[in-house]
């Protein structure tokens, strides 16, 4: 398929001008890398980098029952204090994962839900269907917004020059902002394991922010670096590490499930699974011999197949790292073998995250 049929973000031409090597990501034309994945990884871990995340979706939930509705479609407790954000999973009745998302409380009757690009339509249809039981509307504004994630130990101080006061925004909080004569939002969030912010502006203004960040020597980063950073931080890639065949318990996200909540979609299934116990769970692996593990590689214990990788990469910090579904009877700390290109290499079972930071 030619790249001309792909959807373009409002930053696509700027990404190409910055040297971005553009690829097809779930139907979107996005940069996989600029100067190089290792250099971009280093920029985010040690300084500041930026990502075009305009492909991500923005759904607005509005109405008197906005919060009870979100409580019903989320397995986590959605915070409803002013400006608070909550990471959560949208589940099927079977308790399996449709998407992972963040809900921000704009007012008691209005929430902004930021969802994965590949799931925008599925999420929108699912939420719209559920909304019929509540007095709420679901609006898909994904095409209206551009979004840039600015990440790294220097991210907040850099952005503070452009958005004064952003340094006082607590983690997982949202603030409205006015920039380039347009209304937008800034959130103290990201998917890299570093501190940082994500800024949403209307599509026709987001390019001006990109230009401003370039002037402040923020390193443009692509999907390649983003994947290494999120895997090091132990974050799920929905569609790879989780999908509609896996529950949050299996995906090592039990902390997102609040069974103490009165009712939510998928609760019964999760209660049953918790009682039964898990056959498999998403687990981390660190190679103890050289090699680069990849999605699809099989995991063996004493010659017996016990699991399969869903994400793997070369980490500049930890060398070969991966996550995958492993039989529950294999304990953390166990020595296993991973088959890469027909060769078996040794690895150790670990509990993610690989990279632990203050955020």
């Amino acid at each position, binding site marked *: 398929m030619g790249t001309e049929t792909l959807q373009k973000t409002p930053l696509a031409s700027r990404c190409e001008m910055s040297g971005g090597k553009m690829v097809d990501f779930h139907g979107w034309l996005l940069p*996989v*890398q600029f100067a*190089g*994945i*290792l250099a971009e990884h280093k920029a985010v871990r040690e300084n500041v980098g930026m990502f075009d995340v305009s492909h991500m979706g923005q759904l607005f939930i509005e109405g008197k029952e906005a919060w009870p509705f979100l409580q019903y479609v989320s397995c986590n407790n959605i915070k409803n204090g002013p400006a608070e954000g909550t990471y959560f999973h949208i589940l099927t009745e079977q308790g399996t994962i449709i998407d992972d998302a963040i809900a921000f409380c704009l007012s008691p009757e209005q929430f902004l839900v930021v969802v994965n690009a590949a799931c925008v339509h599925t999420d929108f249809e699912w939420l719209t269907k559920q909304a019929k039981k509540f007095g709420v509307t679901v609006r898909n504004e994904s095409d209206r917004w551009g979004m840039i994630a600015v990440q790294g130990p220097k991210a907040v101080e850099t952005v503070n020059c452009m958005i004064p006061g952003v340094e006082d925004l607590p983690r997982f909080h949202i603030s409205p902002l006015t920039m380039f004569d347009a209304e937008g939002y800034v959130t103290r969030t990201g998917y890299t394991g570093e501190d940082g912010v994500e800024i949403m502006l209307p599509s026709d203004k987001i390019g001006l922010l990109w230009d401003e960040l370039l002037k402040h020597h923020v390193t443009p980063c692509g999907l*390649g670096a983003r*994947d*290494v950073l999120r895997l090091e931080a132990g974050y799920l890639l929905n569609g790879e590490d989780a999908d509609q065949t896996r529950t949050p318990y299996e995906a090592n996200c039990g902390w997102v499930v609040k069974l103490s909540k009165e009712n939510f979609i998928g609760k019964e299934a999760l209660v049953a699974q918790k009682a039964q116990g898990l056959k498999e769970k998403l687990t981390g692996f660190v190679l103890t011999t*050289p*090699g*680069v593990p*990849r999605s699809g590689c099989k995991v063996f214990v004493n010659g017996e197949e016990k699991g399969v990788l869903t994400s793997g*990469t*070369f980490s500049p910090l930890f060398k*070969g790292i991966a996550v995958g579904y492993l039989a529950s009877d294999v304990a953390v700390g166990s020595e296993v073998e991973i088959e*890469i*290109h027909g*060769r078996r290499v040794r690895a150790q079972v670990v509990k993610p995250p690989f990279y632990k930071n203050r955020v």
Partner: protein
Amino acid sequence: MYNQENCRFAKTHEWAFAEGDVAVVGISNHAQEEISDIVFVDLPKVGQKTEVGKNCCVVESVKSASEIYAPVSGEIVEVNEALNADPALVNREPHGNGWLFKIKMANPAELDNLLDFNAYQATIAK
């Protein structure tokens, strides 16, 4: 060291440089640019027999794995151990210290089936 003008190239971007009946094998500058940050090279075993076009080595970048095909038939007689400690040598010196392995050629006439530098350049020109 192995000047590209004196190398023979496979369409799959490997080069071969003849030293008597031994061919030194590496990947082209174009290939290393496309692969970018090389982080691991899974080298063949010394003594291993290989044939033209057979996958005998894997070059890994952060993002992907690239199979390397033998440009000539023969036996692997040496591998570049320096790549175990510094795989990025392939990026920095694809025609020098970033060579991959050496093949004792079963049939040196196979070199004639490979492209010369100019013909290879023409295949990668956009």
